[in-house]
């Protein structure tokens, strides 16, 4: 049961990474690939009806984490206090920027909102990558299962890490690159005209960097936390994840050459999912590793909720997810096709 909930939470966070990932990526790229006001509106319209729903995966995933693994929620949210507060402020700014842009007709204010959207989207991508790298590297958990991490210490991994060190910064930059690529492929898929052409060029340039960063990430992870190979030795099926990563990178390249827009975007989604699976497979059954051998890690065994909570949760979660997936199908189906480069009036 606890293992099932581990994969449910991981799955919801993966859904968040894939879905909100592309609108974060659009936020990072659009000031560069969309040059005229019409193109910027086109880019915003390409994510407008869906970004809020995508972000709900973070909220729903967080809520599910809260009730399935209360100790992990309590320990990690308070331990990462500062970066989380910054993430909250960035989420506020980003939501305002994308929605309020259309309320202001003056180009000056629109450029301000463009800047805010770029700023918040980029930093969020970096923060999420850094967060994942922190979880993989581990944190100095105390005897009461709590910890508090400063933003930085000496930029080294080891017994006294900060939230930012050489490894987690690599994680952040990697997320920035991967989500930019993901966003570029989404724009290629959903738009037409010059915006699409420039997004295609951007995707072509980003892909090699993403590939290089991915290759570098493996030795970096082994250096940062040697234990992470343990599960791979124990259970060779875990190797599916790195093969998935490599396969999806190749498949992005092939799909782009064959001009298969959907294929490239889906391959990039598989890439993100495989990366997260690789990290999760390396961790399981640990949820948050301790950097000190003397202290216990937070594992699914010591963090999981009571049995009745989990059983009841599975019933409503299944129903709720079926409904949520149905809503997503309705929305994405109604929103199918390409977003025109000409300003179209919505319902009013």
């Amino acid at each position, binding site marked *: 049961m606890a293992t099932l909930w581990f994969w449910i939470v991981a799955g919801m966070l993966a859904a968040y990474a894939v879905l909100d990932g592309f609108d974060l990526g659009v936020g990072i790229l659009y000031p560069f690939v969309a040059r005229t006001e019409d193109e910027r509106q086109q880019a915003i319209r390409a994510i*407008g*009806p*869906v970004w*809020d*729903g995508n972000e*709900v995966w973070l*909220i*729903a*995933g*967080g*809520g*599910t984490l*809260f*009730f399935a*693994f*209360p*100790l992990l*929620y*309590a*320990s990690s*949210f*308070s*331990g990462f*206090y*500062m970066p*989380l*507060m910054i993430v*909250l402020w960035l*989420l*506020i700014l980003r*939501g*305002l920027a994308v929605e*309020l842009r259309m*309320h202001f007709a003056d180009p000056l204010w629109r450029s301000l909102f463009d800047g805010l959207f770029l700023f918040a989207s980029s930093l969020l991508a970096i923060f999420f990558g850094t967060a994942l790298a922190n979880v993989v590297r581990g944190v100095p958990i105390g005897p009461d*299962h*709590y*910890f*508090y991490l400063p933003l930085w210490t000496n930029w080294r991994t080891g017994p006294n890490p900060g939230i930012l060190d050489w490894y987690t910064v690599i994680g952040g930059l990697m997320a920035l690159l991967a989500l930019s690529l993901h966003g570029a492929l989404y724009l290629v898929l959903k738009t037409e005209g010059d915006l699409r052409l420039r997004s295609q060029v951007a995707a072509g340039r980003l892909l090699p960097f993403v590939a290089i960063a991915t290759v570098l990430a493996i030795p970096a992870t082994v250096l940062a936390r040697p234990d992470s190979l343990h599960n791979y030795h124990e259970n060779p099926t875990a190797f599916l994840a790195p093969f998935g990563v490599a396969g999806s990178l190749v498949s992005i390249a092939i799909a782009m050459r064959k001009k298969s827009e959907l294929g490239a975007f889906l391959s990039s989604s598989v890439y993100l999912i495989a990366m997260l699976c690789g990290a999760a497979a390396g961790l399981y059954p640990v949820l948050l590793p301790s950097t000190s051998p003397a202290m216990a890690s937070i594992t699914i065994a*010591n963090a999981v*909720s*009571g049995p*009745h*909570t989990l059983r*009841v*949760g599975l019933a*409503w*979660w299944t129903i*709720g*997810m079926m*409904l*949520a997936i149905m*809503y997503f199908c*309705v*929305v994405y189906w*109604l929103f199918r096709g390409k977003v025109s480069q000409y*300003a179209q*009036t*919505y*319902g*009013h």
Partner: protein
Amino acid sequence: MDALTLHRIHFAFTMTFHYLFPQLTMGLALLIVVLKTMALRTGNDRYNDSARFWARIFAVNFLLGVVTGIPMEFQFGTNWSEFSRRTGGVIGEPLAMEGVFSFFLESAFLGLFLFGEKRLSRFAHWGAAFLVFAGSWISGFFIIVTDAWMQHPVAYRLLPNGVYEVTSFWGLMMNPWAWLQYAHNMCGAVVTGSFVMSSVGALYILQKRGGDFGRIFLRLGVTAGVLSCVAQIFPTGDLHGKYMAKNQPIAIAGMEGLFHSEKGAPIVLMGQPDVEGQRIDNPIAVNKVLSFLIYGTTAAEVNGLDAYPRDQWPSTLPLLFYSYHIMAGLGTYFAALMAVAMFLLWRGKLYTTRWVLWPILLSFPLPYIANTAGWMTAEIGRQPWLVYNLIRTSDGYSKHIGAGTSLFSLLGFLGMYTVLSILWILLVYNIIDEGPKSTAETATGKTLVNALVNA
């Protein structure tokens, strides 16, 4: 200030600011569904135009509700980690359900409702409006279930590792406290929605602009207003108060400022509690009414604060007393104003009676104050407990987060929310100032746009 106080202010401030938005959107969502229904039934496009106008105000408030709501879920973990660790197995459940059952629904259909009117049939668009309404009211329910468990814990057991878990899902959902509080709270949201709608209606009539929109807004606002204001006092407020008297008698004693147990206890309408001297200064009181309100007989004895140990008294007693009295006082004023307005509406004189239109115009901020005061009554009344009789507030906060760190993020939120407030007032003022557009105007505007695009 110590860390505990700062964590409490942190949550109280971000929560209070957040709830300014949902109380309006939940109330408005219902009124918009009523407008859409009237449009369907009468075929009168004025109702659709009205719904479109209120949808714009709804959208701005909804956005602010979303962006200020996300920090709430995070703050359980960041600032109240010990509370989260112990109770996540219970309250994590309704919180996760809110995301899964309500936020997905709202986020999917809000876009369709706001931007899909041209693409959807009239019935499908009504459906989108209804689902947005349903989503926002479901969301409110799960939050109330969470709070109700903290006020009146039911259906739980303590596991050996010191954490709580649910023993009965339906027990948690059917917590009587939750349903009473939900009824009372949702009436409060409709009061806010009705007052805002009536106020804009009164504005347009007093300004002699907007054609018949002012009258439509005022008619619907006052009708929904009088119903919700009365239901707010009786039965929802009355039943909630009685249930509270049974389960949180100390909170009632604190709210009423009753320091000493008394037979035929009086109700204090106004006064200033002096906690040291254990009395009310400058009281305006009516004898025996409190006994009657709680027990239905004027002779009943009501326990005062002196019946309970001092360490169980609500920790900020004067604030509790004032919150409750502001809520109850404003609630009485709302019912009176709306009753007068309803009478005039029935007699056909409301649209020309300026001495009533003016107070309606100026009263729109008051429901926000009353709703906030009501929540403060509930939450301060629960003190010193975080979960009533189970976890003290002083045991629930994140011990690893220092006072300085908490103050840093509190100041950050204060600054951020100041900017949000300014944007909010600016945007809503612009929409109200621009006013609703009739279908005819929109149609010409649209051809103009098409002509420009095609040129």
